[in-house]
């Protein structure tokens, strides 16, 4: 199954529900486009919900890092929500677990943006 990204707005936070595979090629490109589009509209609080991500490869991890950097450079925040065990493990192996702000409760994740800004 290829990647699907659905966007919804919760208060000041843009939640991107990502499902399927985040791998090299169209999947990564699609995720990049979604982030770019939101940043262009000045939506700088982004929460990526990865609950339904079945597979992520090194390019997908690179895409998450690029998104994080792009959002940070615009003065925004990108956080991650609901990691599957495998995504969690991969972020630990690649030492990115401490780079990202990671949440497992959506309401708390949303409110963490408000307190920070």
């Amino acid at each position, binding site marked *: 199954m290829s990647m699907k990204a659905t966007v919804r707005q919760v208060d000041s936070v843009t939640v991107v529900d990502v499902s399927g595979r985040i*791998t*090299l090629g169209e999947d990564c490109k699609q995720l990049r486009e979604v982030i770019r589009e939101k940043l262009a509209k000045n939506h700088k609080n982004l929460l990526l919900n990865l609950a339904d991500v079945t597979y992520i490869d*090194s*390019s997908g991890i*690179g895409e998450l*890092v690029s998104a994080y950097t792009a959002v940070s450079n615009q003065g925004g925040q990108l956080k991650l929500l609901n990691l599957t065990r*495998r995504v969690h493990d991969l972020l630990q192996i690649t030492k990115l677990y401490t780079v990202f702000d990671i949440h497992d409760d959506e309401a708390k994740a949303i409110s963490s943006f408000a307190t920070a800004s």
Partner: protein
Amino acid sequence: MSVTPSSSDTKSKASVVEVTLESTLKNVEVAEEISRRVSATAGFGPEAAFQMEMAVHEAVINAIYHGNNQDPGKSVLLRFLIFEDRVEIHVRDQGKGFDPDRLPDPVAEKNLLNASGRGIFLVRKFMDEFKVETSVSSGTEVIMVKHLDSEIQSN
């Protein structure tokens, strides 16, 4: 594409699965599917099977993109040798090769936010043995091994 399973390699008692892939992104998923079948045949559990599949995914992408420069006229030879206690995987491309010890360390502080450079690192994490052989005549071959007992120990 041709898949050739056989057990003719009696000298080393390995069962062999070999496939030649065109250098296209679609074939990465073909390689993953074969990896899953091989894992089942070898008797790997789900975790080891996932790790091997990811290693195959990354190694084949590396061969297609960096080895063969996405030239569909160039192919990747993927070969699984299934032994009683391990699976040995060969991924051969038609490129000039690389020195895995000279790749930037993706978990070094200064490289953490790099957008790429984690593929071979993950292959080495997930497989028990890893080496790269390059020759002028036959291209570059990544050889990686996963032992059956490595999973028993980790569970």
